[in-house]
Each structure stands twice: as structure tokens, then as C-alpha cells.
């Protein structure tokens, strides 16, 4: 091959080569044209969806325990049936399919779509193993559903202690607004529930924990391609309540079928030892959304199982108010022993023809302030009230915490009512009558208290130096919460005055007292006061026959007590609704709890 021929072949071949290269270069160009122009929409969508997804991992709720680590609220692992967020709009169709194909019933009434979920939405937590098996076998028919594992709340004690433990329910619209306002939204991503009552609600911020996150890569079909990184959720803190579950159980048993409330407080530190509101409910009913029927039943007007009577129940205190009224009088140097009256069973209002009767028709004979407490002499207190006047009377009731919230760590607390002239003027546009002062002194009239207020006031009587407000939280993750306890100024009362009131209360369970039977065979001395709260205003000088009244109009039975009288360890307030006489109905319940508590000590 000579050089000329080489150059010729070279030129020809370089032309062939260049043609080939242009052709070759067109192949990827056409492919790119196809990708960028023809398939643009598809890849545009892919690149939008094709992103890193952050899936929140909901934290495990903290346990709620009693003071001896008895579990009141636990977590259990369940299989949940969950639906993809994007398919939630078809929920009714899917519900029908589940019913038709697999005979699985899901109640979706309360399972409103929750826009905080960044994950699938659970539609049922309580499928049986058999239902799960059936679903898994037919999974292909339900591409938008899947079975997942979740921890849900479990309440091993069931109805017992339900009011204090509370319950959780699905996060609803109000919760979301609240989370937004409080900047908590990020804490609830992936969470399905939040505390709705009791400690579950009050200590939600401690119990809830912080969510973790799983950073995953997904394709356009939202299939997980891989997990990029994972940050574990921080479980909620376990809280110990001041409640002694054993005591709680004894109190509930003592109540039986009766309605009412009991609260026991340690007067040394204001720890709530027992907290009973009867009837009660099963908090587990709410975890998966409660059915309309069950909800209606719980809220039935006569039982009001959802009402936390300890803090939300308002009752006339009846005679249980007398020790405080007595202390008010003594503090104002009124009717100090040895002052006494002769009680004939009737009290005639000065400058008036009105006559108030004592609960004991024939009267109590000679009565001083000590006896007035132990026999609950109304006549003595009518006069005392009038001498003291409503303003001074209200002052001491205020000191003992009546008419205002105790600020206990549970939601729904009521203020109660301590009526005065101003209040009556505003409410009824009527003047205050002297007779109203007289009946206020025996705990009737307008006065309304909560069982907690009664117990709290009794604790202050038992331990006047008590400056701690009643509370339910004992420790968080085992760390005592002393520093967070609310403090108020302790009152100081004259020792001698206290002594007289106490003597009156001690005599309640002694021979002649209104609850003398309780004192028989008792191993310790208790200081008590019985009360019978009339539910409707009796017309003056009128009597009623208890036996003729329907149950729900019968008097409430009240009982306050602390023991041992000389060195108080426990304070109890009991109210039995429509129970009749306080000493005989409410007293034994309190005694049962005290017996158990003090025996243990």
C-alpha cells in the first residue's frame, strides 16, 4: 500500500467513521429526547414523589403506676389494620368489602382522618388472630390496607381507678388546634392517641414521649426502597401516682354499688392515697374509639359514670362544715367553752317569727361547742352563725380552701360555692337574709363543695401546718417530684381552739356521738364529722320522711375523718349520693379504708 493509497483509504474511512459517530451520537440524543420531551410528565412526577420520606415513629407511652409500682396503665403490642392515607376517602367502600368478603366489622365512626398522621391510618386495633389470618389470606384484594404492629394502651386494672388514670382517645380536630397553638405538632407526628382525662391527660407531656424518625427512600409507588437513617423514639416517662392501689381497691369494694366519691389524703404531705369516683368506666373502651351506644350508656343521666365526682361533683357539705364553722367562731371569741346553750330542738330567729328545727326533734339539751360538733347540734350552730356573721364565716371557709380550686393535678376541678351578699345580689338580685347565714352555718343553703375540698380542708384541720396542696404525682421515672409540689401559706390557729374542735370530732365516734358505732372496737381513735346534705330546700318548719322519697331525692351521706386523732396519718372524705344518713352509710366506707391503711402502717 503506497502513501497515496493510504491517504485515500484513510480519508474514505474517516468519513465512514464520522458518519458512524454522528449516527451513534443520535441514539442517546433520541433517548434523551424521549426522556425529556415525550416522557417529561412521568419523570417530572417521579422526581417530585421520588423523594426522601420521613416516617415518624410514635413513642411508647410512659407507664402509669401506683405508689407501690402497681401498673395502672400499660402498653400492649397489637396487630392493627391500617389504611394508606391517600386511600382514606374510600374507607366506606373498603369497610363494606371487609364485611362482605371477610366478615370483618370495623367501626369507623370515630376514626376520622387525622392530618397529623404521616403514616398509615389505623382503622382497627382489636382484630382477632383469626380475623388477621383471614385478612392476610386476602391481602391482595385490599392493596391499600396492611397489618402493622403497634403499641396500644392497656389498663390492667380495668374500671378500677379509671377516673384517676383517665383514658386516651384518637387525636381529634380540637387536639390538633391545641397542638398547633402550643407548638406541639411535631411531637405528635405519627401518634394516633392523646390523653383525654385523668393523669393520662394532665401528665400527657410527661407520658407521651418524643417521636423518632425513619428517613426512608421511596419510589413513585411509595414503596420503601431503603431506610437511610433511623432515630429511635424516646419513650414517655413512667409516672408513679401517690395512689395506693390496694387502698383504692378496698375503697371501691366498700362502696359496692353505691354512687359517690372517696378521697384519702396523707395530712403530712398532701399526697392523695385513694381517689374513688363511683360508678366508674372502663378506660379501654376509648382506645379504639368508643361506639355511640357505649358512649350514650356511660353518660346516662342517672349514673354519670364519666363524671369525676372527686373534683367535679358538687355537694352541699351539710354538717361536715360544722368543725370549720366552729373554728371560725372560736377564732372570733364566740361561744368559747364553757359557753353553752340549752337546745330544745327549735331555734327561733331573732326579730322574726321563723323557727329552724334541729335534726333531733327533741333537742340535745345542754350543748357547748364540743358537744355541738359531736352530736351535730343544728340549733347551736344557727345561733353561732348569726353571732359570727356571714363575712367572718366565709373568711375561714376561704382559709380552708372552700369556694376555690385546690389546684390538684387533674383536670375538671370545680370551684364550688361560698355564697355571700354580693354573689346573691348578682345572681338573684335579692338581699342576703339572716336566715341564710344561719343555715350556711350548718352546711346547708347555697354552699357547694367538692369531696376533694372537704378532704383538703380536713387535712388542714388535722395538720394546720400543712402548706402543700393535694397532689397525685409522686415521681417521674422514679425521681420524686417534691420540687414541683404547689405550696400555699399555712394557716395558724389558736391551739386551744383547735383542741376544742378536735375534741368535738373525736367524740363523734364516742358514746353519744353521731357515729358512735364506728368507735366501737376501733384500735385507734379517729376525729370525724358526719353530714347529711339535703338535696332540696325543705320549707322551713317542715319535716320530711326519708322513706317516702324516691332514691335520687334522698339526702347525700357525708363523712370526713382523720386518724389517729393525736397523730394524723390519713384524712378521708366520703360522699355517698342519696345514701341517707352520713354516719351510718359513708362512715363505714371511710373506716374500712382507714383500718386497712393504719394496719399496714
Amino acid at each position, binding site marked *: 500500500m503506497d*502513501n497515496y493509497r493510504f491517504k485515500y483509504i*484513510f480519508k474514505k474511512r474517516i468519513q465512514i467513521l464520522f458518519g458512524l459517530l454522528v449516527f451513534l451520537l443520535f441514539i442517546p440524543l433520541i433517548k*434523551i429526547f424521549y426522556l425529556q420531551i415525550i416522557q*417529561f410528565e412521568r419523570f417530572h412526577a417521579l422526581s417530585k414523589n421520588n423523594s426522601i420520606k420521613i416516617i415518624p415513629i410514635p413513642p411508647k407511652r410512659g407507664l402509669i403506676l401506683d405508689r407501690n409500682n402497681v401498673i395502672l396503665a400499660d402498653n400492649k403490642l397489637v396487630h392493627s389494620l391500617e389504611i394508606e392515607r391517600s386511600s382514606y376517602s374510600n374507607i366506606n367502600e373498603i369497610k363494606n368489602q371487609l364485611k362482605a368478603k371477610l366478615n370483618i366489622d370495623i367501626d369507623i365512626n370515630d376514626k376520622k382522618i387525622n392530618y397529623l398522621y404521616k403514616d398509615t391510618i389505623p382503622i382497627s386495633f382489636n382484630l382477632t388472630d383469626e380475623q388477621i389470618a383471614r385478612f392476610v389470606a386476602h391481602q391482595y384484594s385490599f392493596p391499600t390496607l396492611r397489618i402493622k404492629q403497634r403499641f396500644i394502651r392497656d389498663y390492667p386494672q380495668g374500671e378500677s381507678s379509671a377516673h384517676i388514670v383517665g383514658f386516651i382517645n384518637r387525636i381529634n380536630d380540637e387536639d390538633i388546634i391545641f397542638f398547633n397553638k402550643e407548638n406541639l405538632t411535631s411531637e405528635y407526628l405519627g401518634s394516633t392517641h392523646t390523653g383525654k382525662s385523668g393523669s393520662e391527660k394532665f401528665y400527657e407531656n410527661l407520658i407521651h414521649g418524643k417521636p423518632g424518625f425513619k428517613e426512608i427512600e421511596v419510589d413513585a409507588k411509595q414503596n420503601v426502597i431503603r431506610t437511610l437513617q433511623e432515630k429511635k423514639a424516646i419513650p414517655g416517662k413512667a409516672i408513679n401516682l401517690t395512689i395506693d392501689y390496694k387502698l383504692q381497691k378496698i375503697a371501691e369494694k366498700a362502696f359496692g354499688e353505691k354512687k359517690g366519691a372517696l378521697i384519702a389524703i396523707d395530712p403530712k404531705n398532701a399526697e392523695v392515697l385513694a381517689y374513688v369516683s363511683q360508678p366508674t368506666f372502663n378506660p379501654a373502651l376509648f382506645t379504639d374509639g368508643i361506639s355511640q351506644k357505649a358512649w350514650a350508656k356511660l353518660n346516662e343521666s342517672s349514673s354519670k359514670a364519666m363524671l369525676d365526682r372527686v373534683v367535679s361533683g358538687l355537694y352541699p357539705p351539710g354538717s361536715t362544715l360544722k368543725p370549720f364553722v366552729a373554728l371560725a367562731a372560736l377564732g372570733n371569741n364566740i361561744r368559747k367553752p364553757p359557753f353553752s346553750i340549752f337546745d330544745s330542738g327549735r331555734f327561733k330567729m331573732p326579730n322574726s317569727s321563723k323557727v329552724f328545727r334541729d335534726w333531733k326533734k327533741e333537742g340535745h339539751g345542754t350543748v357547748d361547742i364540743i358537744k355541738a360538733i359531736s352530736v351535730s347540734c343544728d340549733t347551736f350552730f344557727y345561733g353561732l352563725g348569726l353571732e359570727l356573721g356571714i363575712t367572718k364565716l366565709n373568711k375561714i371557709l376561704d382559709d380552708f380552701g372552700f369556694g376555690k380550686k385546690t389546684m390538684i393535678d387533674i383536670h375538671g376541678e370545680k370551684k364550688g360555692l361560698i355564697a355571700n351578699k354580693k354573689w346573691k345580689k348578682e345572681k338573684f338580685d335579692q338581699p342576703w337574709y339572716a336566715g341564710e347565714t344561719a343555715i350556711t352555718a350548718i352546711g346547708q343553703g347555697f354552699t357547694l363543695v367538692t369531696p376533694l375540698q372537704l378532704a383538703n380542708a380536713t387535712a388542714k384541720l388535722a395538720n394546720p401546718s400543712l402548706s402543700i396542696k393535694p397532689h397525685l404525682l409522686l415521681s417521674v421515672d422514679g425521681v420524686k417530684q417534691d420540687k414541683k409540689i404547689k405550696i400555699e401559706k399555712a394557716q395558724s390557729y389558736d391551739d386551744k381552739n383547735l383542741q376544742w374542735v378536735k375534741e368535738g370530732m373525736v367524740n363523734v365516734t364516742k358514746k353519744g356521738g353521731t357515729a358512735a358505732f364506728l368507735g366501737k372496737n376501733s384500735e385507734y381513735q379517729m376525729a370525724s364529722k358526719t353530714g347529711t346534705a339535703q338535696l332540696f330546700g325543705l320549707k322551713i318548719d317542715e319535716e320530711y320522711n326519708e322513706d317516702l322519697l324516691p332514691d335520687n331525692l334522698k339526702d347525700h351521706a357525708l363523712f370526713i375523718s382523720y386518724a389517729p386523732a393525736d397523730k394524723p396519718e390519713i384524712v378521708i372524705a366520703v360522699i355517698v349520693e342519696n345514701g341517707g344518713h352520713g354516719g351510718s352509710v359513708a362512715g363505714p366506707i371511710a373506716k374500712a379504708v382507714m383500718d386497712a391503711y393504719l394496719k399496714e402502717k
Partner: protein
Amino acid sequence: MSKILNEFIKRIDGPLFSISFLLIILGLITLAGSNLETSKIIVNQVFNISVGLIIFTLVIFTNPRILFGYAPILFFLTIFLLVLVHFFGIESNGAKRWLAFGGLNLQPSELIKITLPLMIAWLYQNFQNKISLKVHLIAIFLILVPVYLVLLQPDLGTSIMIALSGFLIIFLAGVSWRLILSSLVITILSSPIIWMNLHIYQKNRILNMLDPFADPLGTGYHTIQSMIAIGSGGGFGKGWGQGSQTNLNFLPEANTDFIFAVYAEEFGFFGVILIFALFLFLIYRIFNLANDMQDTFSKLLTVSLGASIFAAIFVNIAMISGLVPVVGLPLPFMSYGGTSMVVSLISIGIIMNLNNHKTLIAN
């Protein structure tokens, strides 16, 4: 200084230099867009370009006779290095490709991309006017030695590149069509044996090309993400620095092998057409220069170097657009990295140098 500059300008080929420089700048712009948070990549790449340009300058000021004279020595030295890699190479990702010289890492398979064409062109120059089948067979043997050595590393992509750059010279040197056809048949028949000797990851990559979406978790991932990046760019692109595929770290190796996908995502199909036009013009210019050269050595070497650049461009773009399996090959002039940049600029330098000495070897 101005004298050197004048001499420099005299020695470079204006169109070729402009196109190359434009591609380098486009690469740098793309890199800057996807590395807005850190200037480290940009600084490094500017350094790589500077080193490339310095070596380029040295090359164009060198007498190409030296290149011709030393061709066999350079070739056998590279072969020796490839053998050394086999024994002393640094292993990473199941492949031995690098030699460590002190602190410097050398990739002999990149060097052979230049020294093999040099050797083959040298061979044909020496046998000019008496090119026969024997010469072609010698050339084929000289090609197969480094191809085999690189395949052993294993580095399928590079070995194919080397083979192509070598065989191209044989084709241009006027080998008969009969021989071309028969060797094609042999290659096809022997392909099952090659397949059996491939590494598992290489097999997977090839299989994956057939259906990248079959295994999105593993080997198909790169291809899918790259195709999404390109496709979502559309006609006009997402804009500079706006490539979400890139910025969300979906696109692997966005700075190096997959820089063209980033470019296509951000500048769209019209941007792609611009780059393709530049590539085509680059090759056209190189071939034109080769055609005007007088001696066999210059002509063959120039086309071979140009074809090597083209092959790298083609394979890279075919790879990122999902036409061929992911082989791990940078895009000349644009990808981040020193070796590729220096090799490309040396190639361009050699071509210009040969062009400056049209009568290198008397005929």
C-alpha cells in the same frame, strides 16, 4: 511573557481549544450548581483544570518527534505498570486499578489509553507502504495484551475503550473489510466465554440494563435516578442549581460519572443539544485536522485520540440515559476529577502538536 503567550496562541488550534474550554466551563458551572454549600469541589476542580492546562502547554511545546521516538518505550512501560497493578494494586470495590507511588495514586489503565494508540500508530508508520496482514495481526496482538490486563483488574468499561481505540487505528490503516467481518464473527461467538468470565457485579450491570426497574434497590438504582433526573429536566430544565434529584442526593456520583444527568436536569433538552453540538464539532475538527496531516503516525494517532474522547463521551451519555450498563466512566472535560481532565487535555495537546508539525516524518 507576551512572547510565550504569542507562541502559545500560535501553537494551539483555535476552534479545538475553544470547544474544549467551553466544555470545561460548562462542567464547572454544573459542578458549582450542585455544590452550592461547599466550595471545596470547585476549588479542587479548578486545580485539576490548571494542572491539565500546564501539562497541555508542556505537550504543545514539545517536539512530537520525541513522542514518536519514545512510543514503544512508553507503551511497554505502561504494560509493565499494568502488570504491577495486578500484583501490587490497591484494591477497592473488588477491583485493583490503582498503583500507589508515594502519596500519588496512578491509574495505568488511563495511561494505556494514550500509549496504546501511540504504539499502534508508531507500528503503522514504521511499516508504511508495506502494510500487510502480518502488520495487522501484530497490531491486534499489541491491543489484546493491555485489554486483557485491564479486564483482569477487572475494569470492563476501560478495557472495551482501549480495545476500540486500538482497533479503530487498524480500521483506518486500511484493513480489509473481510478481516473486519471475520473478527466480528469471532467476537460474537466468543461472547459466552467472556460472559462466563465476567465478575458478578458486571453481569448484574449488564442484566440490569435490560430492566433497570427490576432491581431498584441495588444495581438499577443509579440508572433509574439518572433517568428521572434527565427526564424531569424537560425541554428547558429546572434551572441552574435547581436539580432536585441532585440536591436531594438521589443521583449518585453526581459530580463525577453522572454530571451529564445533572446538566440535563438543570438545563433541559436545549442544553443537551448545545452539548451534543459541541461534542460533534469537537470530533469533526479533530478528524479534519487528521485529514490535513501528512504522515501516517500523525493521522492515525490523531483520529485514535479523537475517537477515544468520543467513545468516552458516548459511553458516558449512553450510560446516564440508560442505554448501556453503568460502567463507571467519567465524561471528558466535564466530570469532576483530575485524571480524566489531564488525559483529555493531553490528548488535545498531542493533536495540536501533531498539527503544528505537519511534516513530522519525511515520507
